[in-house]
Every structure is written in structure tokens, then in C-alpha cells.
């Protein structure tokens, strides 16, 4: 019974934990501008994140080492520092979008300007990070975030022509008014929305926080192989809603309200409340994860004590970092447009993925870390193909960013 509960919780955590502001804005925007033409990227992104998280989780469970600890050990301090710098900068960018994003959700619920909410959100984040137990925190956000299943209900309620949707997914076309470079730019964004390094780094550190061992691998596998695909369905639902409701009307996503309107169109008031609660939980949870993830990475790189699994006085640098990060993020979040930042952050996520994917791939093959549970041949083949793809994406990102003037 306990095992079944553990499994269930794990799956639910994975589902609820996948969606963040990058998905809300980015997946919907892709639907609004290209219809179902970018659906295949969600599928590719799902394969990538499943592989990535599975490897990182396995390494953490068996070796009790979290990602950046291992990354520095294998790549050396200099290359790992470049890695860390890029990852940290990118995660902070994401965090800015998430914190401001929570403000946006609260604005939609109350009418009060999102900027007023930002400091409150930051304080609430701090309070929760400080007081609640790691597992409780993770589980609560994810479970509340399950209300995002309302997205699936909304799609169903709109009765879209599924044959047509499928056809458009399999035969992507560039609509009038868009061009190829914007298509690829948004494709990169979709990939980044699915494969966010901070989520994997968090997953890996979380495995150590919760004291996972090789015996927990079954739970880990179920989380990843069942939970993530369901989470990906939510991302797909966002794209469908954008394609079915926003695209015909020529609406593109520049505000969170435009993400909510398709749901309210389908389901009315109850849909509105469910989607607001779901968005709140998903984005707030993502903010907590991103904050922790940055602090974890920095501490793991330097070898400093980190984590909520030790008494607070034993990890002073970890806690100081958390405060410092929240402070910077709050300040920056007050300045920039959250939706724009969210869209940038997913593009850069995609670009930065190979930096952390590559060392984890090597280590997941290394018996010194994972004993007998090294990658199977299928995993390796897929992983290498994905790695090549990721490197191509990385190289294409800045040129495309410049070519589309950041507007995608």
C-alpha cells in the first residue's frame, strides 16, 4: 500500500511539476502562431527530458551524488565553471519569469497590479523554503498543480476536429505572415520549454535530499516514464488551445490572460478558477524549484554543504545564497516584462542543455558511479542522437535570435 502511494505521488509530482511559465506562454504562443506545426517538437522534447531525467536520477540514487558535483568532477573546474555560469544565469532568468509569473496569476485573480505582488511572492517563497520539509513542499505544489488537468478538459470541451489537428501536426506548414526563421526559433523555444535544465538538476538534487537509493529506482522510473508523458500532454493541450482558439482570431500571446481565455471559453467560470489555481501552483512550484536548483548547483560545484536534509546551521552558504538569489530576482522581476523574459528563458534553456546533458550521459555510462546500471544500448543511441541535435540547436540559437530580433 505504501509502495502504491509512493508510486502515485511520484507520478503526480512529475505531471504537476512539468509545467511552468515557459510552457504556459511558450506552448500557447506556438499554437497561436503556427497551429499544430510545432507539435512534433513537444514529442522530441519529451524523449529528451525522459532520458535526461532518468540518467540524472539513476546517477543520484546509486552514487548519492548530485549533478553539479559530478559535473565538476568529470569536466574540471574551468569547463564546469562555464557550465555553472550558463546554467545559473539561465535559471535565474527563468526564476525572474516565474516569480513575476506568479504575480501575473494573482493579478488575474484580484485585479491588483502584478508588480505589487512580486515582493509578497518572494517573501512567501522564502518562508516556504525555510520552513516546510522538502518532500511536503514538492508534493503540495505538484498535487495542486494537477488542477492544470483542466487544460485537457478544456480541449475536450471545445470539440476540435482531431483528424484535422493530427493532420496539421504531421504536415507542418508555415502560415501566411510567418517565416521559416520564426518557425525554427519557436521550435527551439518549444524544446527548451520541455527540457529545462533546472528541472533535471532539481530532480537529481531532490533524489539526494530524499535519500534515494538503488531500491528507489523503480519509483524513479515510473515517475519519469509515466509522469512526464502526462505532463507533456498538458503542454500539448496548451498548444492545441492556442491553435484552436487564438490562431483563428490572430491573437498572439503577450499576456497571461491570453493563455486563460481559451479555457474560460470552453469551461466558463469554473474553468477560470481551476486554471488560475493550477497556474499559480505550477508557476510557484517552479519558482521554488528554480531557486533551490541554482543554490544547489553553486554549492555542489564548490563542494559546500547544501540541502534541506541537514540542519540549517550546517549549510550556511547554501542559505545565504538562497536569500541573495531571491533578492536579485525580486529586483529584476520588477523591471522586465515577464512574458518576454519567459519566452527568452526557454530559448536559452534549449541552448544550454548540452552543457549539462553531456557529462551526465558520460557518468550514466560509468560503472564507478552507477555500478551495473549503466545505460543500455538503445538509451545510448537515442542519447547521442539527441546530443547532436542539442548541439545544433545551441549553435543556431544566437543567430536565430538576432535574425528574428528576439520576437520569434
Amino acid at each position, binding site marked *: 500500500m505504501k509502495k502504491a502511494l509512493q508510486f502515485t505521488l511520484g507520478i503526480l509530482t512529475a505531471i504537476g511539476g512539468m509545467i511552468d511559465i515557459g510552457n504556459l506562454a511558450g506552448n500557447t504562443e506556438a499554437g497561436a502562431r503556427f497551429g499544430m506545426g510545432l507539435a512534433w517538437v513537444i514529442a522530441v522534447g519529451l524523449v529528451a527530458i525522459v532520458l535526461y531525467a532518468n540518467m540524472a536520477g539513476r546517477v543520484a540514487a546509486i552514487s548519492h551524488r548530485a549533478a553539479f558535483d559530478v559535473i565538476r568532477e568529470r569536466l574540471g573546474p574551468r569547463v564546469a565553471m562555464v557550465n555553472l555560469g550558463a546554467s545559473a544565469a539561465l535559471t535565474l532568468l527563468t526564476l525572474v519569469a516565474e516569480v513575476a509569473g506568479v504575480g501575473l496569476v494573482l493579478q488575474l485573480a484580484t485585479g491588483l497590479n502584478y508588480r505589487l505582488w512580486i515582493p509578497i511572492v518572494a517573501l512567501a517563497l522564502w518562508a516556504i523554503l525555510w520552513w516546510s520539509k522538502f518532500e511536503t513542499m514538492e508534493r503540495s505544489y505538484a498535487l495542486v498543480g494537477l488542477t492544470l488537468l483542466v487544460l485537457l478538459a478544456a480541449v475536450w470541451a471545445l470539440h476540435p476536429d482531431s483528424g484535422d489537428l493530427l493532420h496539421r501536426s504531421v504536415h507542418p506548414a508555415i502560415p501566411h505572415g510567418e517565416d521559416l526563421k520564426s518557425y525554427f526559433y519557436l521550435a527551439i523555444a518549444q524544446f527548451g520549454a520541455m527540457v529545462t535544465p533546472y528541472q533535471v538538476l532539481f530532480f537529481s538534487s531532490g533524489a539526494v535530499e530524499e535519500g534515494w537509493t538503488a531500491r528507489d529506482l523503480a519509483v524513479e522510473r515510473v515517475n519519469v516514464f509515466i509522469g512526464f508523458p502526462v505532463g507533456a500532454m498538458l503542454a500539448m493541450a496548451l498548444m492545441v488551445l492556442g491553435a484552436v*482558439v487564438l490562431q483563428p482570431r490572430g491573437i498572439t500571446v503577450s499576456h497571461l490572460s491570453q493563455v486563460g481565455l481559451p479555457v474560460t471559453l470552453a469551461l466558463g467560470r469554473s474553468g477560470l478558477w481551476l486554471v488560475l489555481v493550477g497556474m499559480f501552483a505550477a508557476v510557484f512550484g517552479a519558482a521554488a524549484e528554480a531557486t533551490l536548483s541554482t543554490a544547489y548547483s553553486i554549492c555542489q560545484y564548490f563542494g559546500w554543504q547544501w540541502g534541506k536534509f541537514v540542519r540549517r546551521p550546517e549549510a550556511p552558504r547554501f542559505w545565504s545564497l538562497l536569500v541573495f538569489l531571491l533578492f536579485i530576482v525580486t529586483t529584476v522581476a520588477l523591471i522586465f516584462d515577464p512574458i518576454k523574459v519567459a519566452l527568452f528563458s526557454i530559448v536559452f534553456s534549449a541552448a544550454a542543455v548540452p552543457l549539462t546533458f553531456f557529462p551526465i550521459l558520460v557518468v550514466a555510462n560509468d560503472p564507478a558511479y552507477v555500478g551495473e546500471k549503466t545505460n543500455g544500448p538503445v538509451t545510448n543511441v537515442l542519447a547521442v542522437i539527441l546530443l547532436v541535435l542539442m548541439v545544433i540547436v545551441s549553435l543556431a540559437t544566437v543567430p536565430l535570435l538576432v535574425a528574428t530580433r528576439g520576437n520569434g
Partner: protein
Amino acid sequence: MELLPTRWLGRRRFAARAGLVTVSLVLLCSGCVLPARSSAAFEGKAVESAKTAAGAVATARLCARQASSGKLTAAFASVTMADAEKDANDAQSSFDSIQPPDHRSDRLRDRLDSILSKAVSALARLRIDARRGHLAQLEHRARALQTIAKRLEQFQQAHS
């Protein structure tokens, strides 16, 4: 002390730095507008502004209909309307700040500007009503947006 050939390390660092610099610049400059050097370029920017405004108008219409049928809270509707108004307003001010390169562009500018002004004031009207909680009449008020939407559509088609 080179663990990797310098060019590898250099490229990564360069990519990381370039990326960060570009992000900051683009974020900061997303409001900045470059001058249009030819009338074709100006026309292109006009179409872009029309497109943005059309999206804002469509959002407002979608919102108005739902608000009138009770699907939205007053808070949600007023935020949506305010956002739409802001988008249209921003589109107009950034378009207005572009220096038209020739007389043909002057006429183009006047034509689009009048449509945009109507859009902005209609959206402002809706925003005010929504803030006051007068949701039931939003759909009626939004009828004015129908003509504006059509004119924006025609403008885009004529100049693409």
C-alpha cells in the same frame, strides 16, 4: 593548463557571453525602434503594428463576449482589457515614433494612425467599463471593435 583544446573552451565561453549580452540588449531594446530607411521598410513596420493592434482588438472581443455571458470575473476581464489596451497603445506609439521616409509614407502613416487611435480609444472604453464591473454590456460596447478589426485586416492585406 588546457584540458580541452582552447577553441572548444573559447567557443563555449563566447556563446555563453554572447548569449547573455544579446539577451540583455534585446530585453532592454525591445521597446526601441529603428528608423525605416525605405518606404517598403516603413510599410512593413506599418503592417506589423496593424497586426499587433489586430491581436489586441481580437483579444478584447473574445474577452468581451465571455465576460457578458458571465464566464469571467470582473478582475480577469479588467486585466485582459487593460492589457489589450496597452498592447494597442504601445503599437501606436512605437509606430508613431518612426520617421516616415517620404510623402507616400506620410499618407500611409496618417491612415493607419487614425485606425489605431480609434482602436485605442475603443479599448480604453472597454477597460473602463470592465473595471467598473459593467460586464454585461461589454459585448455591446465591443461591437465598435468589429469595424476596427475589419479595417485593420484590410490594411494588412492591402500592404503585405
